[in-house]
């Protein structure tokens, strides 16, 4: 620490250059934070708490429907504790940009399957008693100012009612919260029996099943048994982990992890060059001063340490500020107004960002530091 004033002094030598370099590092880390939040929103979520849950969908495609009686057959398969289903409703509330998910479910078994959704007992009871009842997540309720007792009209893009209308009305009977940050509280769920009776086509079919396995270590074997059960039928199935299912949805956009890694790779490579150039220039400009330090007794190792400390201070400072700004911006929630309900900067990525900032400092400072370390005192003093 006693050398800190020397490190600060050198960074303040060319203030404009240091500030510009610092800003470029800050921007890189803000971008890192944002991309982390986007990746989290597209690939994270239910995968974390759904380790004991499997998704069973049509083998051909997620948009192909499965028969309702598969549920009974699934529940008989050894290793399956429970099964329930959902169907993609694809509704619009007022404006297509007001996107959020709405699915018909069987209330009791659906809530039992998803303990991460916290719904007051009274609301659960009300849902069981109200045929047109729906529960909605806190985020969406707050977004549209909905409260219990409201009647909500939603226009389906897929399902027509028997009277030919695509407009469905639901009574909000409860608002659920997430047990933790990873729980998506944007969807609306309504009763399958109301949906199945009222729809004009597709009666007796569902979108996909969620099954809970008794032993997570045997999930793969259970998945095989489920798919074997429906092999050679008119609707063969594909069973996969809930996380893989969510990621398959996200992969409709592209390989999110690869895209974010590529962008970040390009950004950090550029920052590596910018910061490396700043430190190199700074070392070249004060060859004589480094010679003086060595003349008065600083060892090669100490000079190496000083230059590395400069690059690390610059990069960690930029990293901390950038990550802080990213944290603040992402903590305001989904910037798309509903497309990315789980948009937040994961703490693990924040720690990784800090580690990257230290690594960036070490890598960018390495060559200039070696250059400073190898300076011969007599030669560098001659250059003054």
């Amino acid at each position, binding site marked *: 620490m006693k*050398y800190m004033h020397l490190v600060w*002094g050198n960074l303040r030598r060319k203030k404009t250059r240091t500030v510009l370099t610092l800003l470029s590092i800050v921007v890189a880390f803000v971008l890192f934070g944002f991309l982390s939040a986007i990746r989290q929103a597209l690939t994270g979520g239910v995968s974390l708490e759904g380790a004991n849950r499997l998704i069973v969908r049509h083998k051909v495609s997620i948009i192909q429907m499965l028969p309702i009686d598969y549920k009974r057959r699934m529940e008989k398969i050894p290793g399956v504790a429970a099964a329930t289903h959902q169907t993609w409703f694809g509704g619009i509330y007022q404006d297509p940009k007001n996107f959020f998910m709405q699915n018909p479910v069987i209330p009791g078994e659906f809530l039992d399957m998803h303990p991460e959704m916290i719904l007051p007992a009274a609301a659960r009871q009300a849902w069981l008693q109200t045929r047109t009842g729906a529960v909605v997540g806190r985020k969406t309720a707050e977004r549209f100012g909905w409260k219990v007792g409201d009647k909500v009209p939603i226009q389906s893009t897929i399902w027509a009612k028997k009277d030919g209308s695509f407009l469905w009305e639901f009574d909000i009977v409860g608002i659920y919260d997430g047990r933790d940050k990873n729980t998506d509280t944007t969807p609306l769920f309504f009763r399958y029996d109301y949906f199945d009776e009222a729809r004009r086509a597709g009666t007796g079919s569902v979108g996909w099943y969620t099954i809970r396995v008794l032993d997570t270590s045997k999930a793969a074997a259970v998945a095989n048994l489920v798919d074997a059960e429906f092999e050679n039928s008119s609707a063969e199935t594909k069973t996969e982990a809930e996380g893989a299912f969510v990621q398959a949805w996200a992969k409709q956009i592209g390989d999110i992890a690869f895209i974010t890694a590529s962008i970040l790779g390009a950004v950090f490579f550029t920052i590596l060059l910018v910061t490396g150039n700043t430190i190199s220039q700074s070392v070249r400009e004060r060859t*004589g001063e480094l010679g003086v330090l060595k003349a*008065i007794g*600083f060892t090669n190792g100490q000079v190496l340490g000083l230059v590395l400390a400069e690059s690390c201070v610059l990069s960690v400072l930029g990293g901390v500020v950038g990550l802080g700004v990213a944290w603040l911006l992402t903590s305001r929630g989904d910037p798309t107004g509903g497309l990315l309900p789980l948009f937040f900067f994961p703490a693990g990525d924040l720690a990784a960002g800090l580690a990257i900032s230290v690594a960036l400092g070490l890598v960018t400072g390495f060559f200039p530091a070696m250059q400073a370390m190898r300076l011969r*005192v*007599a030669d560098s003093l001659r250059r003054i």
Partner: protein
Amino acid sequence: MSESGAVGVLVDVNGVEKVFHRGSEDIQVLKDLHLQVPAGEFLALMGPSGSGKSTLLNLIGGLDHPTRGSVTIAGERVDQLTDHRLAAWRARHIGFVFQLYNLLPVLTAERNIELPLLLTHLSRAERKSHVETALEAVGLLNRAQHYPRQLSGGEQQRVGIARGIVTDPTLLLCDEPTGDLDRKAGDEILNLLQALNREHGKTIIMVTHDPHASARASRTVYLNKGQLTREPQV
């Protein structure tokens, strides 16, 4: 035979040769050079440009190694030390004063003077006390918080001297300390060096072109074509 063991001899340069290699060319700067400096002496080293004065000073200060011969300071063979040990040795035994002051522009006078003390185990308070003593010795206590750019050339050189003596080194090496100053400021610096030698017994070797400066030394030697003489060569 080396005379480093002789009573009172602090610096013993014995049969030193220094050759620089520039491509295929060898440039011999010092040839079979012998020099002894007793403790407490103020020695002026004069000679024309390119005569090897600074090279000799660098060898005595442990900044460079001789091609041949030995350099012994206070009984220690400096030419045999590794770079790492030389750095520690310099921190303990040598104070440098440069022609162009060589202060770090980003540090205040006080912080510049403190630099060699950072290499010691002194506490912050002890370092501060040593710095104040050095500032007082060079008459700049009231300029402690000034940056080099806020000081005159003479004041900067006094800060340079304070940095050179703050660790109370065995030997003070001055490379043209008045070379960049006007006569008045130069005289002040020479007064200061003389006082350090006479009142504090500091051993000083000063490289200079200026006969006026060398007149302040207790002895002057001349370097010409890599060898020492008692009289200047015409």
